[in-house]
């Protein structure tokens, strides 16, 4: 029975169906299933599969986003119960995100936030056109592990460099890892400004973030 339920949970995330995911989460609680098992054996398997499908071109951004939304819906049902039981979904890491100063384009940054959050990272989203000192302040405040700076425009890419310099000035690196992304950004630029990593899409960003957390570098471009 739980196996069947876990399968349905996984499928609700792949289908990007928040209502179904919510119902299944409620059903799990009603049946006395450990909410942590529901996440790890059910819903999370769906988001992993969706990520893989996106990576090989079978799923597309709207699908991926719908999967992430369904994940969020399930987690919001399960989280209060987990807190009550004193169990907690493993926090993969704390990530501060924002777009570079002067850049208001946030589709990419929002996608990264959604995917990372759905996968178990704790996200602190500073929004758009964020000054370097705001990044620094937030990193200190929440004791972040990773800072992600997004820039769409070639003219605002310099803002990514400014954030990394500010982190260095404040002695926050190498403890805090700085990653960058955006349409015009390349791994070459990432190396040039001394970033710890770059990825070209939200799913690769998830891999990159996981790798940086475990200091293992394979997917994405975690730079030494």
């Amino acid at each position, binding site marked *: 029975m739980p196996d069947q339920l876990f399968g349905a949970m996984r499928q609700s995330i792949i289908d*990007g169906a928040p209502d179904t995911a919510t119902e299944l989460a409620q059903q799990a609680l009603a049946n006395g299933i450990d909410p942590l098992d529901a996440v790890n054996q059910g819903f999370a398997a769906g988001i992993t599969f969706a990520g893989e499908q996106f990576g090989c*071109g079978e799923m*597309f*951004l*709207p*699908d991926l*986003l*719908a999967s992430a*939304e369904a994940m969020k819906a399930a987690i919001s049902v399960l989280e209060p119960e987990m807190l009550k039981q004193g169990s907690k979904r493993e926090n993969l890491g704390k990530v501060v995100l924002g777009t570079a100063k002067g850049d208001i384009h946030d*589709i990419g940054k929002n*996608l990264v936030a959604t995917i990372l959050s759905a996968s178990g990272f704790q996200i602190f989203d500073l929004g758009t056109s964020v000054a370097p000192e705001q990044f620094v302040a937030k990193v200190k405040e929440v004791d972040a592990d990773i800072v992600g700076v997004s820039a769409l425009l070639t003219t605002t890419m310099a803002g990514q460099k400014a954030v990394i310099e500010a982190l260095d000035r404040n002695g926050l690196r190498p403890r805090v890892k700085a990653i960058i992304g955006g*349409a015009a*950004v*390349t*791994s070459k630029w990432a190396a040039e400004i001394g970033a710890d990593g*770059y990825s*070209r*899409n939200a799913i*690769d960003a998830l891999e990159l973030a996981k790798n940086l957390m475990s200091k293992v570098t394979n997917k*994405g*471009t975690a730079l030494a």
Partner: protein
Amino acid sequence: MRPKIQLLSPELTDRILGEAFQLLMNPGVRVGSAVVELLRSAGVEINDGVARLPEPLVRKCLASVPRDFYLYNRQGGKAVHYGGDDVHFDPGSCCVQMLDPDTMEARSSETRDLVRLVQVTEMLPQFAAQSTAVVCTDAPSAIGDLYRLLVVLEHSDKPVVTGSFSAAGLEGMIDLLAADCGGRDKLREQPRAVFDVCPSPPLNWSEFGSHNLLDLARAGVPAELVSMPLAGGTAPVTLAGSVTQHAAESLAGITLHQLAGPGSPIVWGGAPAIFDMRSGGAPMGAIETVMLNMACCEVGKHLGLPTHGYLVATDSKFVDAQAGAESARSAMLGALTGINMISGAGMIESLACHSVEKLVMDAESIASAQRLVRGIEVRGETLATGMFAQTGLSGNFLKLKETRALFRQEQHLPSSVIDRSARGSEPPIDAFTRARTRVDELVSNWQKPSLTEDVRRKFRAIVDRAADRAGVAAELPGK
């Protein structure tokens, strides 16, 4: 609104047909002896093999041509609609060379090449039909046409655009198709294949061509006229003049065909081209060649007939930028003209050579062309206000359920042949390499068609019999 493009004014179309009818009387049309009796009994005057076809007779024959018909797949489903502005694509056919992706040199095409082309075509929805794409030089040439069709039928469920090399070849090919679908009557009812039949420019329906038209008309198997004037070489140098010659050759073909089998399906097709004044070749990528195909098709449409053209090919020797540019633009223009069947994809070197890598690249151009002719559609009650009512000024369209529900209809989602990704850490891969990978993927995902053992045995018996008759049984591959 479906986007459409037109090159000929109604006045010019009338002039083209007017002069075409004049050409059918003077100088007349050279015809094969096979049709002399048939023409004489219809009151046609024939001197020294040249027939003068009076306009009333030609008009009468035109009137009996079906306005549209379907080709069927092996399962009996309607797969190609010849008629109206419906557009379909099939790979180019009948060349004798294959581009070797390892050496980048052309070599003689063999059975394994045809199998690969058929497998890839089978897997790509852009192609509504197969073609007998290459001649298999490892099979005896005496039964080359029959053998090609055998290979296609053994590896595909789709309809086939084909053609025969001889009268005996045609008989065997019709036998194969009949064995596949359950008899000649069934084949007439639900044709699986259309046969290209070519006049020789100018205005010559040779012995073989005439015979072919007659046999097809009597068997009720669709024929596709492939008139190929070369503007400036074997036809008037002006595009309008060549379109006129094409019309005259096609009208003559229809007359022979409909006299033999009134009501038998026939397509107003062609492979017209300009004559290249440097090389003396037929440049398939030239814009004027494309214009000729478009205009010839317009004349056919004016007559209310199903149409065909030869596009999506290139003169380049490689699958390179020239190949991409020439093939993509002609795919677009052919689709905008509403040509029912557009042959030619995969071909390079002015139709002398095939490339399966180009075929998968052309499939992307074709998909874009197919998207283009679908035009801009209205979905839902409002165009934008309904979606803005949900997003306000947040710009969060990616999250809307409409986005997820409609993006697949609004956008053609290209295969990995088309690179739209952001630059990653790995070096980017060029289009030809991506195409090679895609070919391998398609071939490995291909599945054997639903062909019964009984039909396979019948196929082999027909081919063996033909090979025996031609005295080449020992040369058949696998013998």
